[in-house]
Structures are given as structure tokens and as C-alpha cells.
């Protein structure tokens, strides 16, 4: 975190409402240039002299193109959500319109907000009237997507709550171990090691769940990596363009045109997908550069959350590539050019993950998008389980797991309490690093004095 309040900051923009659904959408732009940027698009009047907390109706126009009829809500610093100059643009609920407005605002100098960045700015500008505990949760999890703020807020609270619970239970046992060490002369009962082992196992499985949730968390935060893979000239670039509604990759009919990896960002239902178009895969290519591109394709496929395996259904060569089999769970078979062929002959990798499209005619594209969303995020985001989104947290969780392993090993080898306590302390420390409560000696002593009758 390098945010220094009052310093020159980028002007940031993001969709504040879920994408696609609903009659209206709100795009929020915040920063020093919010007014000047929107002013360039808003044709009805000059925003420069307008007061804070006023509404303005009119058209957004860019280079002669009318984008939408909108209402602007103006908030001047510091009387805004972030404490900066903010404009909220209420536009129509079409995802095309929303994407277009975002695009134009970005072209004019705004940048896409990082997840949680509005809240982060609000926090640092002293705008957030949160309890301090909530402030921590906010800082820790400044990673939710603006578009899913409400849903993710719950997740955020849940995360530190879960850990707090584990930490409290561990503190209870740490107290018992410490009791043995500091009060061995006293007439008190000591640790039931079997119970302690049980607790460690419980904490371990909870930790493992959190660690596992990182994959999904990472997807929510950093976007879903999607590799588009297919034989040369299967139409990968055309598909990319169809998904993005624009012309980006070099499209030609000569096989093997795309040699560089092209990465584009796509927003499906408010989640970010990173599309990677890769060089076509041919099993026998003598072209050195093309070989390089294919190497890259393979590694892209491995690193991706989703692989779109694009098959030219007009081509006789419809066999899938052997090396995709290990990835079949994350692969969507997309039969392209269905408008020009009798696609029934085509064999896909997995039937339930097959979509028929025509990239050129733009048919089947929406169906493909929804399948991508289902696979990457789908039902998981609906669950009440806590999701870890932050790489640092993930790293700390791994250390917690490691210290739990050490505790288990120590217990099994009858390690003395003072050494066992070190692993427990490490575990508590790392739990504290996430929940922000690094000091635990007082909690431990408090537990001891509260629960046991000590003292001569």
C-alpha cells in the first residue's frame, strides 16, 4: 500500500452496479480529473461551474458517436464517497453501453479501479466511519470487486471472523500449555493432549479450506485466465473479436497469422476474464517462430483457469490435441463456423462443455460467455464459504499450515511444552498477521487467569 492522501492520484473508474442486468447501471469515476474527463463527453452543459450534490441530464457523446442518455450525480471533494471529486453516471443497463462508456473514460485518461480501490481511498481520506475492527477488515481485504461490493463485503467480514475463531480456540490451548510451563507448581489440571490434537486437526482442515479457496479468490481478484487454443486458422482471433466486440487481433485466412500472444480483458456478469489468444497449434511446424508461439500456447494452457479449445467444424481435421486431455475439466470445446458446416460429425472433448458458435456471424457467443462464467465462478460465489483473495494471506495461510504440521509432529514425538509452545506461538502469530492481532501474550495470560485458580 503506497497510498499517500492528497498526492497526485490517478482518476479511477468502475462499474458500481452488477453488469448486464437491470434497467440502469451506474458508473463511478473518482479523482482530480473526474470532472474534466466527464465534461469532454457530456454535451448538455459545462460541468466545471456546477455545484456539488446536483443532478444533470444529457447525452454522452464521443467523437460524434452518441453513446447514451444519462444522468450525472456530482459530488465535489471532500463531500463524496471517496473524499475526492466523484461523478456517478447513471446509464442504461446494456452491458455494451456500459463497456463503451468505461472504454471512453479510460481513453480520456481515467484508469480501471483496482478491486476495492474506491473504499480504500474513502478509508484513507477519513471518510469511512467504520469501527476500527472494520477498518482492519477493509484494509486487509481491499480486494473486492467494486461491481460485487455488497456480496464481497460479507466475504471479507467472514474471513477475519473465521480466523478469529480459530485463533481464539488456539489461544485457549496455548493458555493450557503455558499454564503447564508457568504454573507447574500449582494445583491445576493441564492439557488434555488428545483434545488438543483434535483441535489442531480441526484448525488444519479449516486452514486447508481457506488455502483451497484461494484459487477462486484469485480468480475473483485477478480475473479468470482463459486460453484460446486451436489449430491454425480455426478462427481464434475472430472469436476473440466477437467476444470483445471489436477488431484487435490480426485476422487473415492464412494459417498461422497470430504469432504473438494477445491478452484482452472481458467482463462477464461483473467478473473479469483475461482472454489469451495464442498462436495456432500445429503438430508439425517447420517455422521456427511459429514453434516458439506454440510453446507459449502450451504454457498458457497450463496456467489458465479455462481453456477454450476452438475447433473448425468445416475442417476435416477435427481430432483434439492429445495434450488437452489432462486439462479436460477446464476445457470448453467450441465448434466454430457452424454456419458453414454439418457440425454433427465433430467430436468434442466433453459433451456438456461444448458450445457451437459462429464467430463471424456472432452466434452462440452469449452462450459461450455464460458457460465460461459458470465454469470459473458459477455456483461457488454463491456459497457462504469464506474466500481468500489476497496472495499475502494465501502465503500466511501456508505458513499456518506448516506450523500446524510442526505442532502435530511435536505432539507425536513427545516434544516438551516449551518447544511445542514455539510452534503454537508461530501459528498464533501468523493467524494474527491476517486478523491484525499480532500480540497474544495478554490474551493467553487473560485466559489463564480467567479460567484457572492460580497463585499461592
Amino acid at each position, binding site marked *: 500500500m503506497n*497510498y499517500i492522501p492528497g498526492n497526485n492520484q490517478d482518476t479511477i473508474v468502475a462499474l458500481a452496479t452488477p453488469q448486464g442486468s437491470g434497467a440502469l447501471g451506474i458508473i463511478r469515476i473518482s479523482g482530480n480529473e473526474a470532472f474534466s474527463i466527464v465534461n469532454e463527453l457530456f454535451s448538455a452543459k459545462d460541468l466545471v461551474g456546477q455545484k456539488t450534490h446536483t443532478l444533470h441530464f444529457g447525452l454522452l457523446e464521443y467523437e460524434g458517436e452518441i453513446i447514451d442518455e444519462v444522468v450525472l450525480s456530482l459530488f465535489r471533494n471532500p463531500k463524496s464517497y471517496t473524499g475526492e471529486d466523484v461523478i456517478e453516471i447513471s446509464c442504461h443497463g446494456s452491458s455494451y453501453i456500459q463497456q463503451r462508456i468505461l472504454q471512453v473514460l479510460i481513453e480520456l485518461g481515467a484508469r480501471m479501479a483496482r478491486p476495492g480501490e474506491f473504499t480504500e481511498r474513502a478509508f484513507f481520506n477519513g471518510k469511512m466511519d467504520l469501527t476500527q475492527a472494520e477498518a482492519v477488515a477493509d484494509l486487509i481485504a481491499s480486494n473486492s470487486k467494486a461491481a460485487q461490493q455488497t456480496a464481497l463485503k460479507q466475504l471479507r467480514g467472514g474471513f477475519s471472523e473465521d480466523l478469529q475463531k480459530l485463533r481464539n480456540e488456539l489461544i485457549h490451548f496455548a493458555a493450557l500449555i503455558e499454564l503447564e510451563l508457568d504454573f507447574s507448581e500449582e494445583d491445576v489440571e493441564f492439557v488434555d493432549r488428545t483434545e488438543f490434537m483434535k483441535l489442531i486437526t480441526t484448525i488444519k482442515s479449516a486452514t486447508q479450506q481457506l488455502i483451497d479457496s484461494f484459487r477462486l479468490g484469485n480468480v475473483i481478484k485477478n480475473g479468470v485466465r482463459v486460453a484460446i487454443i486451436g489449430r491454425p486458422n480455426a478462427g481464434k482471433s475472430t472469436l476473440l473479436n466477437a467476444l470483445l466486440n471489436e477488431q484487435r487481433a490480426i485476422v487473415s485466412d492464412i494459417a498461422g497469422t497470430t504469432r504473438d500472444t494477445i491478452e484482452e480483458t472481458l467482463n462477464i456478469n461483473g467478473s473479469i476474464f483475461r482472454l489469451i489468444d495464442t498462436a495456432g497449434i500445429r503438430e508439425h511446424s517447420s517455422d521456427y517462430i511459429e514453434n516458439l508461439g506454440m510453446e507459449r500456447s502450451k504454457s498458457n494452457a497450463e496456467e489458465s483457469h479455462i481453456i477454450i479449445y476452438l475447433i473448425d467444424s468445416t475442417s476435416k481435421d477435427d481430432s483434439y490435441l492429445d495434450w488437452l486431455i489432462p486439462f479436460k475439466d477446464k476445457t470448453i470445446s467450441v465448434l466454430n463456423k457452424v454456419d458453414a458446416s454439418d457440425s454433427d460429425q465433430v467430436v468434442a472433448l466433453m459433451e456438456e462443455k461444448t458450445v457451437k458458435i459462429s464467430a463471424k456471424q456472432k452466434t452462440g457467443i452469449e452462450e459461450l460467455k455464460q458457460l465460461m462464467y459458470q465454469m470459473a465462478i458459477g455456483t461457488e460465489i454463491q456459497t457462504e464459504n469464506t474466500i481468500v483473495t489476497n496472495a499475502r494471506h494465501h502465503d500466511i495461510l501456508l505458513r499456518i499450515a506448516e506450523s500446524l504440521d510442526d505442532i502435530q509432529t511435536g505432539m507425536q514425538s513427545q516434544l516438551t511444552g516449551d518447544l511445542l509452545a514455539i*510452534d503454537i506461538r508461530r501459528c498464533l502469530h501468523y493467524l494474527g498477521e491476517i*486478523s491484525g492481532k499480532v500480540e497474544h501474550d495478554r490474551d493467553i495470560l487473560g485466559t489463564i487467569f480467567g479460567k484457572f*485458580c492460580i*497463585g499461592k
Partner: protein
Amino acid sequence: MFQEYDVIVAGAGHAGSEAAAAAANLGNKVLLITMNMNTIAQMSCNPAMGGIAKGQIVREIDAMGGYSGIVSDKSMLQFRMLNKSKGPAMWSPRTQNDRMLFALTWREMLEHTPNLDFYQDTVQGILVKDNQVIGVKTNLGHEIKAKAVILTSGTFLNGIIHIGEKQFGGGRVAEKSATGITEQLVSLGFQSNRLKTGTPPRVDARSLDYSKMEIQKGDDIIPGFSYRDNVPKLDPEKQLPCHITYTNTEVHDLLKTGFDRSPMYTGRIEGTGPRYCPSIEDKINRFADKTRHQLFVEPEGFKTVEIYVNGFSTSLPEDVQYKALTKVPGFENVKMFRPGYAIEYDYFPPTQLKANLETKLIKNLFFAGQINGTTGYEEAACQGLMAGINAHLATKEAEPLILKRNEAYIGVLIDDLINKGTDEPYRMFTSRAEYRTLLRQDNADIRLTELSYKLGLAKEDRYQAVQEKKSAVASMIESLKQTSINPDDVNPYLEKIGSTPITEKQKLAKIILRPSVSLEEMVKEVPVLKDIINITNINNIQQSEIQIKYERYIEKEQEIVDKINQMESLVIPDSFDYNKITALGTEAIQKFNKIRPRTIGQAGRISGVNPADIQILMVHMGR
């Protein structure tokens, strides 16, 4: 009639005595003022020194050249190494002491200390000029000048003693309290508060039936506290035993009949008592489901029949104390010498101190012991030692000596006090130290003697001994790490202790890492070891073994500590304006303004400051 002193120490308890000794041994002209020359270094409460965490402190005091360890060794009537079944970091020496001999030995040692004068009088206030202390004034009307003053008032400041419904002023039973100092300091801007502590009844050994109690004997080997080998130790055969007995529900019921006359429950006592040293009435009240509580029956000395009933601290009326005691097994015919009592006294919340124990408000004025909210002889003594050293350094305008948390329990204690403060009497526990494996009783000399030697406090003989120990241990560890042993040589020993035999040559250090292996045992059982290491010095063998066994754990501790220390290296500029940070809570702003932490790490240790506040601070400092 008085010269101008370098250092005046007011109060001659454990803190005052150590302070006076340290300052005098460092070459200062020191005056020790006490109300009563006959009660120098009184043990006001239990007749014992050391114990878990406290024993480590006594060893630290000794390693630095303080007197508490030597005095305890010379006056012990029983020695036990507590926690022997736990790891070496937990081993804690403890002595039962002859109360009178203890005080007498202290006085003797102080009288043999050069540069140290005594005067029997009561300090009534300090002399201040330009926010700097310049001396003290006394009840007898003397104004005595000094460059530095150390106040070690114990429980004497406005002390009030409670026994049942009776209440009277006093610093200990039959001793007057001290008045005037609190009032003056408050008028100078200090904050003061009340604490409470208590002590149990003393009884006549001739009236007890020990056959109804468990006996608790001393150890067969007495290493003692002092690292100096010329301190005579008690012959283990001559130790006196303690005894253990228990209360029961009948005792509890009798005690409850006095609750309506208890100063604790009728609101006459305002001060906060320690949670870990509760009175017997508090024990039966707070832990009502416990049907018995342990009592330790401790002899007060070789030449007296007086017995200290440890665990029975109380301020209930004497008749209730007496009646309840008669229902304790072995106490049926008990005769009471002195009733237990509670005492309330003033302390000055220690957040008003700098790390050298000097007050933030008045230059060269130092506080040590219970005046800082601590409890325990050991806690008091080590503060006295540090105050004595730092008063010396302050008058020489030299850098203060501040022990770090990874150097000594003393460092943990003072760091806790000045940063977190305390609202109950503060006692040391090993769990307060994040470097517990490092802060052992066996290595206090390695940790601290050189430091003190360079200051001029620890003498040449101590320093030489530590240097020899260090190099002998280092070379032994080196040999153990370099030398491999044949299966034939070591397997008989391994089989004997039920440890898996080795199949090929293995480094000795690796074998020592096994939890069940003891190097001390191994040198006896494996003859070839004689050729590899010097087995004559048991202490060095133990030390080498501990260091090898603990190495990995010390690294783990270090891992956590490093993380915490990253915070310690983030210095907060003196000019930092907390008021301007809108995101900070009001309470945090107040705390930061009051304590003015030097580092982010210190800021994080302030009680009432939340992690969120620290993160906000860090962000504002550009981190």
C-alpha cells in the same frame, strides 16, 4: 552534615538495595535512606526467591553483578530447580530463605560496599530545579543534595493496611507509611493510582501436625543462583522441608462467614490486586466449584518456629482466619503468630517512565520496584539494578543501558512496563517473553556479563569465567558437529534408552538432537567420547547440549521476532502529528500523544491501540 551525593536511593527494599549497590559499585557516592535500618531488604511476603521466570531474573541480576543471587544463596534453607521435567528454557531455580538471615546478609553486603552511606530517615519529597531533581527532603528536616534520585517506595506510599473491619496506615504491619511524596509528585504533573496486595497469616510450627501433610524436600544438588563459584552453598543434607496441605469445603464455609466484614467485599479496598496471586477469599469466591486449594507450609528460618502459610493470603477478620485455619488438615491446634492482611498503596503508572526508568517529567529522577506497579522481590530487584546503573549513566551524561527483549527477562519487564503500563501488580511469566528459549537460567551470564563488565559493574573474575565458558562450549559444539561416531560405540547407549540404533556413522550433534538423548548421560555410557570432548565440566556439557538441541527452535523464535522487529526499525519522527490523521480513533490519538512511541513496534505494544491504528500509521509514514 551531608555531602552532595551522586545518587540518593530512597527505600532499602529489594529495589533500593540493588540500586544502591549498583550505583556505589560503579563508583558513585551513594546515600541509602531508609525508615528503619533494621528492616533493610526485608522479605515482606513469602520467604522465597526465584521460581518460574523469577529464578531466571535472579540469575540475570547475578550475571550483571547484582547482589540478590548471592544473598539468596547465602541465606537459603531449601533449593529446588522447578520445571525440571520441561525443557531447559523452563528450568527455574528457587530457594526458600531464612527471612532474617536474608536481610542480615543483604545488610552485611551493603555495608561492605565502598562509596555507600546509610541514613535512617523518611524521604518526604524531592528537590526539583528546572525540571531536574537535585536532592530530597526528609521528615527530620534535612535537605540532601544529589545529582540523581531513585525512589523505591514499595508499599509505603500512603499505605493502608486492612484486617477485617480494622484499617490503619502503614507500609507493612507495625511499620509506618510514607506520606507527602505522592502529593508532591502529583502536583508536579505525575499520575498516581492505587494497587492492593496481601499476605497470609504466620503460625507456630510447634502447633502443627506435619504427619497430616505431604512433605516437599529440596533437591539433592544445589547449583544455586550465583554464577560465581566462590559463593558457599547450603549442604543439601541440611535443607529444611516444606509441606503441602489443602483447604476443604469446611474451611471455605467458615471463611464465607467473614465476608460481610471483608474489606474486599464491603468496598473499603479500592486498589486492584493481582489476578495470579488472589487472596483465599477471592479463590473460593471466583472459583466456587473448586472444593480445595493447595497451601504451602513454609519455614521462616533455621532459628525460628515461625511458619508462612503460603496460599492463604487474606484480609478477613483475625477470628475468621483463625477458625478457618483450624479446619485445615494438620492445623487443628494451630496457634497464630500474626494474622494475614491486605495493603493498599500508591503507584505511578509506569508509562510515565523512559526505558532507563527515569521519569519523563523530571530529569534524573528514577523509579524502581512496586512504585512502578510490579510485584515480587525479583521484579523489584532487577529494576533497582537497572535504575542504579542508569542513574550512574545519567549523571555522567552517558547513553542509557537498555536491555532488549531478546537479551533478558529484565528487558521484557521494563519494555512491558513503560509501553503497556499495568493496572494490576505486574509479575513476570515466561510466557511474557517471546524469546523464551533464548532467555534461560543457564545462559544469563553469556547474555549479560560482558555488557555489565564493559560498564564497569561486573568484575574481572566474572568476565573471565564467562569468556572461558563461551570458548569451551563453542569448541565442544564444534567437535560434536564435526565428529562422527561408529554404530558400535553408541548403539549400546541408544538401545539402553530405547532409542533407535544407528546403522552407519553419524555426527554426534545429530544424535544429540533426539529428544530422549542426554549428552550428560551419554558421556558416561560411551567411553570414546572422552577422546573427543572435555567431559570434566558438567555445566559446559549441559550448555553445549542445550545449544545444539535448541538451535532450530531459537531460529523459529527468531523468525517471529524478526517479523516483529521489522516494526521496531520503523522510526516515527518526533514531530509526527497524530491529531492530523483523521482515520485514527480518538483513543489511539490520545494514547500516541501520551506515550509518543519511538517506533512502530513500540506503538503496537501500547495497550488500547488496535492493529488498525498501526496499519494507518504505517500507511501515513509511507509504508
